[in-house]
């Protein structure tokens, strides 16, 4: 698989339909999109693909750790990866989030997700 350097997003969401929609929105925004439905799968992808620049993850995820812990782990191991955390269950304090991570409340609109992506300052190849 050939990925665009600087514009690779990883969508972590266990609900296939929701994941698919998020992937489509990020794809429309110019990202190459990878999808994972469990937290171990996310870590495996990041190890395999250092070109990943954005992690978009749900909080409640199958796996030994949840999405929030996953985000912290990713921040620690891959400091350059931008992180967006989405949830309908919790609204975490900014202090609970990894540095620079953004929170998006479910349900979110395609435009809402695209705006947060822009605010994170990601340069997209399609531009």
């Amino acid at each position: 698989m050939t990925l665009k350097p600087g514009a690779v997003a990883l969508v972590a969401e266990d609900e296939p339909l929701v994941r698919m929609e998020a992937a489509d929105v990020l794809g429309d925004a110019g990202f190459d999109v990878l999808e994972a439905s469990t937290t171990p799968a996310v870590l495996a992808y990041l190890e395999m693909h250092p070109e990943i620049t954005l992690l978009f993850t749900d909080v409640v995820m199958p796996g030994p750790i949840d999405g929030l812990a996953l985000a912290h782990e990713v921040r620690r191991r891959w400091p350059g990866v931008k992180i967006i955390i989405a949830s309908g269950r919790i609204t975490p304090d900014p202090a609970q989030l990894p540095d620079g991570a953004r929170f998006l409340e479910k349900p979110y609109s395609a435009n809402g997700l695209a705006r947060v992506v822009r605010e994170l300052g990601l340069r997209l190849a399609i531009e």
Partner: protein
Amino acid sequence: MISDLFPSALVRDAARLGSLAGLNLLDTPPETEFEDIVHLASTVCETPVALVSLVAGDRQWFKARVGFPPCETALNASVCAYTLAEPDLLTIPDLTADPRTRDNPLVTGEPFIRFYAGTPLRAPDGQVLGSLCVIDHTPRPKGLSSRQADGLRRLARQVTTVLRERQLNVEMRAARDALRVSEERLALAFAAAGSLGWWDWDIPADCVYAGERFADMYGIDPALAAQGAPLTAFVEGIHPDDRSWVGERIQQVVATAGEFSEEYRLRHADGSVTWVLARGRCFHDGDGKPLRFPGVVVDITARKAADAARFAGEARLKSIMETVPVGILLAEAPSGRILMGNRRLAEILGHTTLYASSSNAYGEFVAYHDDGRLVEAQEYPLAQICGGQCKRAAIEVLYQRPDGERRWIAIAGEAIEDEQGGTVGAVVAVSDIGDRKAAEAQQDILNRELSHRLKNTLTLVQSIASQTLRNAPSLDAARDALAARLIVLGKAHDILLAGRTDSASVDRVVQEALSLHDDTGRRFRVRGPSLFVGPSAALSLGLMLHELATNAVKYGALSVPTGCVTVDWTVEGTGAAAEFRLDWREQGGPPVTPPTRRGFGSRLIQRGLAGGDVALHYAVEGVQCTLSAPLAGLRVDI
């Protein structure tokens, strides 16, 4: 002349005149005792005149006289005045020869007296009052014989004796009068008191003297009671049930010279019963023998009736307080002193009623607010109401019981007002709201869960709508597809909500998702073990099966009358390694050709169930799809 010799100082001596005035003799009518004395003096001394002469400050006055008409004379006519200074008998044998008396008008004129013998008269207190004197119209050079002089002295002393007796009589009369007044006043007081009676028991004589009221109360003839009657006569009036113990108390008081104060019943001739309070005391004589036992008795029937009514009221209140299922605490205002608490309160608080002396002492109650702050003494409703801040107050606190348990309690208080509307106390109801608080907490969790579910569902609906529109060839097609997908979503929700637990049966999910497409009722063969999955997996599975069935109706086995689909699922392995696997097999349809374009359905199916794999084959004899996923991942509750 006279003035030189006249004993003016003694005549006017204040103490002497005071003593004379105190005897109340001057200007009083004749009295036999004194008359007798002057007659005896006259006889003994053989003189025509004898006088009891009292020398006042301005005259001499005769209490008794023989042979001398005037009842008084001026001082310048007094010979007796000279006697005042004499220790004993004054004898003047010839008044015309004595310089003290030769110019006396009674000597120089009528009645021309010539002889005088007088002895001082003394009051009981020793003051000299005047003289007992004898007078003759002829001189007596030898004076009185010694026997006559002795007789005169004795008679003078007799006057003093008479005076002493008179004085005693006067005092006794005064005392008697005072006593009578006192008795009259006491009688008036007893009469005014209405229900008060008195008795006085002469113990050695066993004679009880009693007033009219007392006699009436005990059923004794008042006349008899006034004369005195034995104690047993009065005891008859006491109610038979009280007679024995009252008798014992009386004996005890008599034996110990003690105080008697007892309430007991009287039974009257007409059978009616009244209550009395009898108070008295027994006195012993110097030898320690019982002497008297006086006392008073008061009718307390009305008070007893009121007591009984109040007691009944209190008993009723108490029984109510003890049976209501809430804790009750009563305090007086403004102190906040706790008056009573019921049994239920003790059960809730885990300790007996804390009789705090004031609202400041409510700090002894240990309780916490919702946020963990200690409840201050003045925050309790009782303190607020008793302190006058409000008429009613309520609070919910987490109460620290002595046994260590903390319980949620609600305290609601209300002021008790007097007729003017002033707060005189407060009553609070204390209830255990542990169950309600737990239910509220549970409700809170449910509400959060519901909110979360709703958000997830909306996210799902939004994704379905967005994806449907993204892939649909026309708006009409999009509308139909969206409606069908939302119906499937709704059914999956129904299954989840109908279940007792937060999971759905795979069998139910499969049946519901496919029912929409089963035009004959025999299109699907569904087989698999009883298995439950979490909400997220149930929704995903439902949607995927719906897409597979939609595709089958359009292009596959269900597009012809003979086609059918088998859906089988199994679980392989156990524990953490358990793997769910579902097979979709289409049969009897037209030959399959792989689609040229990947639509929403195939894209969704390609994503598979959480953390699992998907195998989708467009085999020529029929579409085959295998969904597999770790069972653990399907049971995650999102």
